[in-house]
């Protein structure tokens, strides 16, 4: 699946996007664990919001092949 990073998170990781294989039935929480071990700066990052296919998602949201997952800090538009 595709993982997208935005704003300060993108800057901290030096990465806007990557792809990742996860076992079927994996949830957002497992994805976050995998990403934290892959990217140490993620561990102390602070509050993160998660969206799956352009919609906010909770930690127990199931993931499927082809999903686009976005991770980003609290928003500040307006």
């Amino acid at each position, binding site marked *: 699946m595709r993982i997208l990073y935005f*704003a*300060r998170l993108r800057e901290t990781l030096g990465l806007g996007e990557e792809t990742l294989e996860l076992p079927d039935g994996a949830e957002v929480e497992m994805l976050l664990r995998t990403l934290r071990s892959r990217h140490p700066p993620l561990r102390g990052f602070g509050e993160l919001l998660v*969206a799956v296919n352009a919609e906010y998602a909770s930690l127990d949201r199931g993931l499927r092949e082809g999903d686009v997952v976005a991770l980003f800090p609290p928003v*500040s538009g*307006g």
Partner: protein
Amino acid sequence: MIRLVSVEPSIDEALGELRLRRVGAIAAFIGIVRGETEGRAIEALEVEAYEEMALRELERIRGEALERFGVEEAVVLHRVGRLKVGEIILVILVASAHRDEAFKACRYILEELKRRAPLWKREITPEGAIWVEGERA
């Protein structure tokens, strides 16, 4: 009408579209890039967007406002990219039969946008660039 725009939006154009609806009131909120924040001068502002999701989230917020307050139509225009102090960052217009619902729906869209739309501001100051995260009144 929901748009992310990279040049200063035309309020006249947005107003024109709403006036055709023969409504009695249009409430407006116009957000401007401020010149200082917490005692620091701001030289410019950058706005980053997760465009696909921002458009969808703003569309959802617009739909909620129309349904909750029974207003006719709402327009949201948000800038992305680099902005100068004094430029327009956000325009919200709400057209309604009467003023009270128009003001309420306008406020609702503004507060929900600040809470939910995946947009981020980065303030360029003489001491460096600072990401704004979360609500700042």
